[in-house]
């Protein structure tokens, strides 16, 4: 699904280009995936965010230098029963945020299994971010920052501790992802060329005759 061309419309040379990226949020239920998205997209926070059924879809656009990055965000339901549906959301996604609740160590180990699954099954160059949510509940912290950071470093993940409630690091983590996403597809277009064309033209001027 949604294997859209990066670079989107109007891939002009100088005019700011628009990149469209599919991003998926994964993680145990009730860790605050929907709240993070709601905060990022609408700047709102509900104390009791209703449990997501299936998946929700939202979009948000951020500007990065001269590029406009449009995120198509798939916010998935965290219940185990929905696990089998996850591949259809992360398939073709260019970015993923794996969320855990830093007051609950079980959600952290669940996050690790998500990361593992993504590394194994999602597209090879997917940008994965790890978000330790509910940072506002510092008193109930059960996952140490250092531990999560070490895990993130080990697996080359972006890592931030976020709070959808106070908006801490919410925009930042999305921006960090936007920065890390490849936007210079056009540069890759040229890439490797076989000597075939070159040698054909070099024949034009060589030789003494004709």
């Amino acid at each position, binding site marked *: 699904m949604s294997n859209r061309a990066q670079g989107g419309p109007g891939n002009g040379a100088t005019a700011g280009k628009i990149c469209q990226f599919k991003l998926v949020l994964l993680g145990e239920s009730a860790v605050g995936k929907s709240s993070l998205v709601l905060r990022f997209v609408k700047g709102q926070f509900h104390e009791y965010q209703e449990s997501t059924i299936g998946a929700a879809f939202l979009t948000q656009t951020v500007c990065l230098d001269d590029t406009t990055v449009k995120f198509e965000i798939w916010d998935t339901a965290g219940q185990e029963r929905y696990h089998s549906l996850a591949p259809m959301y992360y398939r073709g996604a260019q970015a993923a945020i794996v969320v855990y609740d830093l007051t609950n160590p079980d959600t952290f180990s669940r996050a690790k299994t998500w990361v593992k699954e993504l590394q194994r099954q999602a597209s090879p160059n997917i940008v994965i971010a790890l978000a330790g949510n509910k940072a506002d509940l510092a008193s109930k912290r059960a996952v140490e920052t250092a531990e999560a950071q070490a895990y993130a470093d080990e697996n080359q993940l972006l890592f931030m501790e976020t709070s959808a409630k106070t908006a801490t690091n919410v925009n930042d983590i999305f921006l960090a992802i936007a920065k890390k996403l490849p936007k210079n597809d056009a540069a890759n277009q040229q890439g490797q060329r076989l000597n*075939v064309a070159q040698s054909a033209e070099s024949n034009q001027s060589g030789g*003494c005759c004709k």
Partner: protein
Amino acid sequence: SQDPSLPEFKDFTTATEWEKFIASLEQLIEEWRLPNIVSTGPLANVSTGALGGGEWKSRSETVSFASFRMMVTRHYLEGSTKERSEEDQAKEALEETEEYQESLPFAMDDLLSFTNDFPAKAHFLVRWYGIRDFLLITPDMGDDTISTVDRQKMLLGSVCTALRNTNCQLPFFIQMHHPQEKIACGVMCAQGFHCYFNMVKLVHTPKGYDTLNGLLTLFKNKLCNSSFYTHLPVDVSIRFTYMLDDWSFFDLNSIPSHSLDVDQVIKFGDLPMGAGVEPISEFRLMVSWPHLAEDVVNDSIAHSDLVPANAPEWCVTIKYVSGPYCYLENYLGEFETVLSKNESLDLVLGSMLSDDIDPELANVMDRLAEPKVRVPDLAASIMPSDTREKRRRLTDDEILIKFMNYIFIPSIDQETVLSSSGHIDFGDISTALGSQSAEKLEEADEVEKFKEKLRALKTSSKNSIVWRLSLALIEAYHTCGGIEGLALLWVKVVGELRHHFERGYIISSIEPGAPNLGMCLLHQKIQMLNCCIETRNARELRESRKQKKKVPIDRMANCHFKMPPQSENPTEGENSSSDEDFFECSDSTSTSEPVGDDKSEGTPIQSPDDFKTLDDAPLSAEGRSKPFGALKLLSTDEQMWVPVCQQPSPMTEDMLQEQADAILKLASDPECSKMTARLQSASLFSDMESFKAANPGCQLADFVRWFSPRDWTEPIRDEKGEIVKAGELSQRMTIPGNMWQDLWEQARPAPTTRQKRLFDDTKEGEKILHELITMSLSDIANLLFPCIIQCGLEKICESVHKGPRDMIPFMEHLIEKTKQELRMRRPNYKDLIRRMYEAEIGIARAESLRQKLFRKEEPEETESSLKRYLAMKAQESSTVSVEELVLDLLDKPEVEIRGGAKSAVGRAITKLFENAQKAKLEDTTLSTKSRRLPASQQFPTPIGKEFILRTKYPRPSNNSRTGAHRIYAVITGNEFRLAGAFTEDMLFY
């Protein structure tokens, strides 16, 4: 010359156009800072890439002579000249007098230099004069040319004046006549010398002047008016060019041909590849004598020492046919045009379709299943017989069956056949290279690695039904009547799929389970069809059981297709053996095994064990799967059961996209979250109903404890086990009016069997089949292309080691590109095909070169075994170096051959020319059966001869300082050209 302290002074005396022109030239020279230009040192050798290989730059500006506009261009080899620094200038001013006597201007040194005589690729003036930095005037007014002598003299005079006035040492040329004529004259003024450049171009070569002796006479005559002045030492460089452009002497069968023979066996899955024409138009050998004293060789009309075998330097270059016809490119490119054909199938097939196709059409498989009965009436009845042509047509039943067999009957042989043909065939080369088998293995490994990479493409697994379908359809397109053939076969195939669907036969050779989104869309659709078939079979089985097995279960096909056992005798009736085994009936128990996390719909049939445990449960409970840990229901304290649930409906990527689009549409709605949740709640609702059925007396909290445990807080007990705080639902679950509560209230206890089906197999299956049969040609081609591209890439990868040196990185990049492209919604197949074509040409060129240079030496009869061994050893080493040559030729514009004629490569080239000569001679005289031709006859007459003669000699009088003089002569079939540079001392004459 410009002192800013002086007031600007407009000199009205520069009145004439001529003076104005000179002034503008001077201004330009000053502006470009050319007066102080000096060389950075002697030029590097041509082989290390100075004049020929260095980076040439140019800079232009227009100047006018009255109304005649001209372009002045400076061509210069980057880094070969620099502006003299002021210190150097000061120093030189002191040493000036000495300098004058010691050294020649750098341009004159270049005229005499031997190091850059025949650059592979350079401006013609560079080729002829060996200069590194010069100015050139060309007319800049459409077709206008400078062709009259007075104009030429006028310009030359202006240029000369400007150069003198600015003290610029660069040669300055004026292009005469039409640019294609390549005629220029020029002048250089430096250190009191004037060097005049002039040219002569004739269509016919004056007698005797195509030899070295003739040219020497001419040169000396020009210098000292006396050809008898024999003590003038002239240095000579000579280069002869030999060309082969007629390859007809090669055996016809040596050029691979892929004719689409009507009677030929259709070779599915083996795409044609290679050039259909000779990709090499010319093979040129340039032999040179780079530095000779004039008296060392004799080259006159009567006798010549100048034969290639004697030449110390050999150089080879190749000219290619541009855009040669290549089979793979043509095969794919032709099909690519279908992508833009929006015609519907009805339109293409016209009246053929209007006849009812469904009932009969699809029964090919039926007939195949019946052993030995194959009545060829079907297609003939559909197609009017008069449309039959001599071409192979699908109306021919035999052929149609062949196609259908290929698509629908998996053959085990296929895998092995394909993989064995996939091995790289090095032919003669490899047999000679016994010692290099390790390398060969390595290459085979590399090919494997490529294939592994190809497997990651979003296509279909190799030899799956989708793969075969794609290849059969493109084959039908090419060999069975273009789009008509394609459309006809497509209709048949869809009919056959419908037949499978309606009869409940699982479509074989595709991975079971829900659509794999990592595969191409067609793959997913076929998987989806299988899901529908499986689901319906399971349902019908269930129903039939309910009716106490009234219906025999032999209609049940096995879920996972089993490959038919390999026939002992594969040649005998490939159909008959596989036909019989094609549909394996499932064991009645095989599908009723408890389905854990399986992809198919959970079968609500319980194993006998379940029934036993059911005995002590309330009878009303239905659809239990297994106890859920030790949890007890909150209100009744009964064991909590996990219900048998409906699996969510499998979806193909386009269905997912559809759903995503639906959600997307709602996203603008403020109530969106409610709406999207409602849209996706069917599965949750079904789970709730199942849960209620399996756990009578349960409440939402119980459901949440199973379904979403994190929304439940366990009760807190004190040491005695007394509940201090009751367990509770999370607050978000208890918000009044939340969806979960809504749904829970609406849900009625019902096991899956009595629920609304989440997955309507009939509807979905029909939808797919309908979609397939109503597609336009372009849609069909889009479905087929991924596998076709992969197959093409595979074909190229098999020959990846036969290509040029950069073939492997190129292919790696191409595969990566393809991987990205196939994930796009509309992949740019045209671009991919173009890139594949590039690779194909590369391989074809390399192969053609090998074929020409690796002509096996005929074993010379009656030789001792030792001799033969030595010969073989020699050939071994020659193989290596010839292979090097082939790769070099593909990489570089010109390849120098070390060791010339005596090297292994040189021998191979001589052989090539000799064979061509022999063939030519045999045409005229059949008597030349001798093994070897004399050295003088091994090569054809050179198509080009180049001579460079140079010397130092005082001119115009004996008292003058010695200046540099040079003649470059090139003699080809239709051109005799002399380019001379003669110096005169303007100080002492």
